[in-house]
């Protein structure tokens, strides 16, 4: 695994044999890499260097501490307060709040809009994020006008996880590429719940039974804290189910 994805530290020189080449597409640099003209590529964070030969791109997989919003991310935020036509939503602690317009929900007009109280959780998409301004969110797709899963999250509970686990949970093939299968395994054991994963390190779990919510939350936080592999996750799930019954 180490030879496949070498560990890089900030400022390391990258072996030219690792840089993918493609006949037609230009090389794309993802997060964690920086291009210093004319021809130097520098890692800026410590992590594993991953390359995708098909798309001719390379990036660094790292488990960072603080979430930095970027456009298009799905995040779970908590409403802090309401202003005239916006909600102020906290995405990351100890930073400026993001703004979410009142009308940015599915089917919202001035007369019919959701009334969110401070403390409510929302699943939103980041529309504007740059280092000069406070981030802006939306709960409806701007092109189609449909929510597509976004909006207020009722009931359940939100758990904090590391950014790396949140990213792996959001991958399309989380078992092969990310090494997390705990949610699928819990579902296979017969528990009924739904989840929403926020890129900012928060996972919301909702279910009819509070025991299920707590169990799923515990499974996720233990997977995160102890860095469990797929097999260990299976054992953990079995242990938790046994404890519950």
């Amino acid at each position, binding site marked *: 695994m180490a030879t496949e994805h070498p560990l890089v530290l900030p400022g390391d020189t990258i072996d030219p044999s690792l840089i993918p080449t493609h006949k037609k597409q230009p090389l794309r640099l993802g997060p964690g890499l920086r*291009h210093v*003209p004319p021809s130097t590529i520098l890692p800026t964070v410590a992590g594993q260097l991953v390359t995708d030969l098909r798309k001719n791109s390379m990036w660094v997989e790292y488990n960072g501490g603080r979430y930095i919003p970027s456009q298009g991310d799905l995040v779970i935020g908590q409403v802090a307060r309401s202003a005239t036509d916006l909600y102020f939503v906290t995405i990351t602690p100890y930073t400026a709040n993001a703004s979410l317009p009142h009308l940015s929900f599915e089917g919202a007009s001035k007369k019919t809009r959701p009334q969110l109280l401070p403390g409510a959780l929302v699943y939103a998409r980041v529309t*504007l994020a*740059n280092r*000069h*301004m*406070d981030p*802006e969110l939306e709960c409806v797709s701007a092109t189609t006008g449909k929510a597509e899963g976004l909006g207020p999250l009722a009931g359940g509970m939100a758990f904090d996880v590391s950014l790396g686990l949140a990213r792996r949970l959001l991958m399309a093939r989380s078992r092969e590429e990310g090494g997390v299968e705990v949610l699928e395994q819990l579902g296979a054991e017969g528990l009924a719940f739904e989840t929403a994963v926020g890129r900012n390190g928060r996972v919301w779990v909702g279910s009819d039974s509070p025991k299920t919510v707590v169990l799923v939350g515990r499974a996720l936080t233990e997977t995160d804290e102890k860095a469990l592999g797929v097999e260990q996750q299976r054992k953990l799930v079995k242990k938790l189910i046994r404890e519950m019954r």
Partner: protein
Amino acid sequence: MATSASQTLAIPGQLLGSASKYQPGPGTHIHESNLYSSLLGAVHVVQPAKAPGPVKRLTKITPAAPPAELPTISVSRSGVSEKREVLPEVGNTVLCRVVRIMPRQAVVAILICGDTVLDAEWQGLIRVQDVRATEKDRVKIYESFRPGDIVRAEVISLGDQASYYLSTARNELGVIMATSEAGNTMYPVSWKEYRDPETGLGEPRKVAKPY
């Protein structure tokens, strides 16, 4: 116009004369029909221009004696030779630096008014509806200005206590100098884009048309 510069020094609050004998000039104020100094500086008395002599026509209707026949008394700070402080007025073209951008306005610091470099930086505000003349509701501040840009703007209002209101809604107004994310000075390529010569990347701005 005869100018007599008396070298007496006045301190703020000092009585200069009566309002019936002098006209108030810069650096003075009137309180209960008396003129008092507002600044610490030298007192200047300017005699008014002599009115033209009476016209020798019996049928001419002359207005009542014009009111400004009194000498004007003013106080100016010592060391500043007869130079009044320049303030931005409505209609002036100013150069300013963008300090902060917010979703509906950009806060700027006014540096140069006309051709004069100002002593103090005055705060200005460019609202999102004053950035462009067309499609005002679809303007995005992040694609028009960034912090650190130098902008040529026009004062449209003296505004409130905090800031002047400025506008860039003309072709020759807008960003005249910008630095890229990589730190290089960029050159303009169109009315809405600046380009970094070293990295080749473009950044959106509301570009001022060069003279």
